[in-house]
């Protein structure tokens, strides 16, 4: 089948190609979520789910990825670690070979580095960061806007499209399937590879490990000024807690990187997490949603942090925090 056939039969029989994510020898969780989302989409489109596994230990990865609902796993052996040029060439070649109706990729940091280029090169409409979708003759995607304060529905025109999904929104696929594992022979155009990975660096080490703390007082941009940090430091002292923060506090250089909670910082699971002046952006929540008890203090009743909180105070931190310190010190 080629793209023109798909266009005329309205996407019926449209296969889905999902591209998995791995790093430094391990498949990332979103890979198994891609299988769930990809099979839902394939079912709606009346086609099959194909996976692409590019670079690294592809045979081992393919075995791990063999879940029910996966028709075929295409392995591309070139390269060890993620290289967006290799990924782009592999996905484009697989697209030419399989003519899928949809290409589904992760909205991960590596996804951000190749998915838009793939969609552009293949002239596919692109919707990123999907949290849900439905298909009824056309794709409708649910995605958030304005820092998760609203949800939107975005309708996509056309029978072929590219989609990236947010991590943690679909359950991980489980069980063992009977996918065909098919090595895909890619002729890499080396001259087109213009970004060379030199290595990796771990950041955020140092004296404090916030992921060990039982109680975290975590401060966000609501604190406004560096001078005001003393207020939350005093709270942490009064509670016998450790101080952590959202990203802007670290970006501003007010606290060191090892205090940052979230997607690009630390994942923490304390007994009690007290978010003070933190809105609850998805990248922040990714690092603290596993906390046993979550407390949020925020002036904005619509702040998304309240959606995952167990206890919430809608109020000004500059009023509430001094009173709370008083309760424990007074």
């Amino acid at each position, binding site marked *: 089948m080629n793209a023109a056939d798909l266009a005329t039969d309205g996407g019926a029989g449209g296969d889905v190609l999902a591209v998995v994510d791995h790093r430094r020898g391990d498949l990332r969780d979103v890979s198994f979520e891609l299988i769930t989302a990809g099979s839902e989409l394939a079912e709606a489109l009346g086609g099959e789910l194909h996976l692409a596994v590019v670079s690294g230990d592809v045979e081992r990865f393919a075995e791990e990825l063999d879940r029910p609902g996966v028709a075929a796993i295409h392995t591309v052996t070139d390269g060890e670690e993620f290289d967006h040029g290799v990924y782009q060439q592999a996905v484009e070649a697989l697209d030419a070979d399989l003519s899928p109706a949809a290409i589904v990729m992760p909205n*991960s940091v590596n996804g951000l580095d190749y998915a838009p280029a793939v969609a552009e090169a293949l002239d596919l409409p692109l919707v990123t960061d999907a949290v849900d979708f439905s298909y009824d003759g056309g794709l409708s995607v649910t995605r958030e806007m304005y820092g998760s304060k609203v949800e939107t529905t975005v309708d996509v025109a056309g029978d072929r499209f590219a989609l990236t999904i947010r991590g943690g929104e679909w359950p991980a696929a489980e069980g063992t399937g009977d996918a065909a594992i098919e090595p895909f022979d890619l002729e890499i155009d080396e001259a087109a590879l213009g970004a060379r990975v030199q290595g990796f660096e771990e950041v955020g080490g140092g004296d404090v490990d916030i992921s060990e703390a039982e*109680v975290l007082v975590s401060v966000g941009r609501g604190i406004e000024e560096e001078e005001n940090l003393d207020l939350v430091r005093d709270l942490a002292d009064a509670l016998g807690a450790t101080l952590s923060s959202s990203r802007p506090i670290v970006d501003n250089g007010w606290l060191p990187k090892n205090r940052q909670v979230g997607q690009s910082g630390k994942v923490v699971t304390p007994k009690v997490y007290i978010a003070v002046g933190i809105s609850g952006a998805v990248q922040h929540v990714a690092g603290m949603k596993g906390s046993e008890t979550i407390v949020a203090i925020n002036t904005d009743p619509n702040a998304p942090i309240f959606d995952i909180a167990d*206890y919430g105070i809608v109020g000004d931190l500059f009023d509430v925090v001094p009173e709370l310190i008083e309760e424990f010190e007074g």
Partner: protein
Amino acid sequence: MKVLVTVKEVAEVGDDFAIEGTGIAESDLEYDLNEWDDYAVEAGVQLAEADVADEVVAVTIGPERSEETIRMALAKGADRAVRVWDDALTEEFLDVAGKVSLLEAVVAEEEPDLVLSGVQAADDSFGATGVALADRIGFEHAAVVNDLEVAADAGVANVHRELEGGVEELTEVDLPAVLTVQTGLNEPRYASLRGIRQAQRKEIAAKELSDLGLSAEEVASALTLTEMYEPESESDAEMIEGDAGEAAGRLAEVLREKGVGA
């Protein structure tokens, strides 16, 4: 070398807001320079100050209102700006390919060696324009850059890409390139009074589709925003009421039950 910085004026929603159709009521929106683009502007200006760049041009896609925001980029040190807009775009939910077509036309006129854009725009968080643009114009790219050194003589940029979980990827990127800038790359400056005065005299060239040799069809969006709603709260949080003192008192009780401060 010449640096092009893409900037967007983003809308921020206040604490109380009303949804009207598929948008937020105008009176509940505040406009600001996109946070990620602020870091991109700073990176461009720093390259000029280090004599790596001879010119820093800011480009935005937005209506006349957005001139206020793009002037912030000029006040912070960009040399001049291009603003692309057309009445044909007002009703559209512009898709990535449409934005890329507009920016491609500007790139063709400006011929930059380096394009800096933000990782994402804070309003719609699409996170795709920079990397898609790179593919269209045949530039190399790197996404989510939080460390940057340009070696213009060697024709490369050495970047760190900030991955998940406190790991950074160190990558050498051939120029010309598009880099999408992550917050924390630098410390964006505040515009000085002198900068703000100077910005009044800097050029903002307004371009319509016809000026760029584009038709409305060429930038027509494949996407339609059909619904906007407040997400149903999944929260089963106990909301603690009362004034600050009462609320703190109740929270202290809860915390003590959990063994905090014991």
